[in-house]
């Protein structure tokens, strides 16, 4: 009978689980060429965001969004009377973090957001009804809903797919493929994490004392959203790159919120019963 139901509903068996895939973005190697942004736009056929000058260094992209899945940040750290060593120009290619406990996936009411066999987070475009709940749920401000009128798949949620279509064919995601300095590295998450630890050791030995990894299982940023499958080597505090210190997973406080709600509701019911029942 279950078999019949599955045939009727056209339910397929999910593909067998593969090794978790992800990105290690080493910002110490980024030169701000934006090849990743362009490669992502081309492969995923994302429309241009329009011509706008932000005035913020070379960053005219602004932020990640429905049609921008890689975003290169430019951080000019120049002090008026600082020494040469204190002048820094940090660059970082931001992307969806493909969290182990993804807030967007948990928020999704339709099941459009799923975890793939590569342990990545993916939006099924034919399921999403554009309710928009994933947008404020994401602690990193990654996922967004496309406008109701536009050239792109309208009014559904979009974000980096980790090039799910390319992964299916054993290919490297477009951004990592195009990166000329290996700042964006793609591979098995476990192996990338080992590589990141080695790289951090090297940089520390060279005197990059402020360098840190962001999104590793042992990091405090993983306490709620879990390890990030797209993680980073940063040269300054996470906030410098607009990354939250401890990204929040809304589920963690939900029981408490429902608790207060229920307390008020039941309190009212009790008062109402006493008022109506206690008449003289």
């Amino acid at each position, binding site marked *: 009978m279950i078999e019949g139901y599955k045939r009727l509903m056209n339910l397929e068996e999910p593909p067998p689980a593969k090794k978790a895939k992800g990105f290690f973005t080493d910002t110490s190697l980024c030169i701000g060429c934006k090849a990743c942004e362009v490669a992502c736009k081309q492969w995923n056929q994302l429309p241009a965001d329009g011509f706008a000058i932000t005035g913020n260094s070379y960053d005219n992209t602004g932020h990640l969004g429905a049609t921008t899945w890689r975003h290169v940040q430019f951080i000019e750290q120049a002090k008026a009377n600082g020494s040469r060593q204190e002048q820094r120009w940090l660059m970082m290619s931001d992307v969806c973090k493909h969290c182990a406990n993804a807030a967007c996936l948990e928020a999704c009411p339709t099941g459009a957001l799923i975890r793939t066999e590569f342990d990545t987070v993916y939006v099924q475009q034919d399921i999403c009804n554009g309710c928009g709940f994933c947008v404020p749920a994401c602690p990193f401000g990654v996922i967004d809903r496309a406008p109701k009128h536009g050239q792109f798949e309208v009014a559904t949620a979009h974000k980096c797919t980790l090039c799910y279509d390319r992964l299916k064919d054993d290919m490297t995601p477009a951004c990592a493929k195009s990166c000329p300095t290996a700042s964006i590295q793609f591979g098995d998450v476990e192996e990338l994490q080992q590589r990141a630890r080695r790289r951090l050791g090297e940089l520390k030995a060279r005197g990059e004392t402020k360098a840190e990894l962001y999104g590793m299982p042992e990091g405090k940023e993983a306490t709620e959203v879990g390890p990030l499958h797209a993680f980073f080597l940063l040269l300054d505090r996470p906030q410098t790159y607009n990354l939250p210190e401890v990204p929040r997973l809304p589920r963690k406080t939900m029981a408490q919120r429902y608790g207060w709600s229920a307390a*008020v509701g039941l309190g009212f019911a009790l008062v109402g019963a006493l008022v109506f029942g206690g008449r003289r």
Partner: protein
Amino acid sequence: MSGNFPPSSRNFPPPLAGEGEGGGEGYYDNPVVRRPVWTWEVPAYFWLGGMAAGAYVTASLAQNFGSADDRRIAAGGYYVAAAALAPCAPLLIADLGRPERFHHMLRIFKPLSPMNLGAWTLTGFTPIAVARAASHAASTGLIRGPLGALARLVPTRLAELAGCALGLTLAGYSGVLLGATNIPLWAKSKLLGGLFMASALASGSAAVTLQAARRGAPDATLHRLALVESAASVGEIAMLTGYLAQSGKTARPLTTGRFSAAFWLGAVGAGTLLPLLLHRLAGRRQGRALQSLSTVAAVCTIAGSLALRWSIFEAGKDSSEDQSASFELSRG
């Protein structure tokens, strides 16, 4: 993405990022989280759904614990509930990016997602509230014939019990839904769910009072309804005080921003304080004076409930652009 060419004077000379000077510790003044894409349909739905639930619960309490007069008068609350619920599903669907896919909400049952839980709750509560209203209409002779006979088959006690459970869920989940995000104004305090619940019960019982006063209800019933409504308002004030205290500086887009008038005058003043005062004034009065005061108080409560949802909803969008509040929210 805000600027155009040539750069606006605000951005020129360009500020430096990551300097930790001028208060900003983040990447320029860029927001950390995305601005919610929802529009006016969402607070309107929260308001109507909450009022429907509050009216249903109030009517059921009177039905099961009240005097014969209470039962007769408060049963009008079932009409209020059914009428307020009617636009809820259309509003919820209109806010979707792809309204033609609204039924995808019901392709899975996932109570972990407040949005999914809300969709199921509305789906369950609406027919129950309509059935209970129809049953009352049949008992007063408003519906006759075969439809009336059908409506009389509705098990009223069961409908009241199930409707109250679903109604309280509907009234209670909306604030939790907003709280289950990373928007500082919505998420910082854990009391938004309780606040919206109290506001829903206040506006729902006020709606029952409104129709009771119009129908010339006996003084004793109006006094009891006023007491119930005031209890909800007191709960709302308590929740609101806790909410503002817990939110601290995060609440600035609400308390000092462009929605502060709607919040202080509408939600707090007209929505809670004024009705409490009016009900106190009405406490010793009888007849027409009591009915008039009850009516004004109820209208204020209902309008204040809308002002509360709307101001917190809209101020939340501004709060999403408050970079320092986002960092404050995610401080380890």
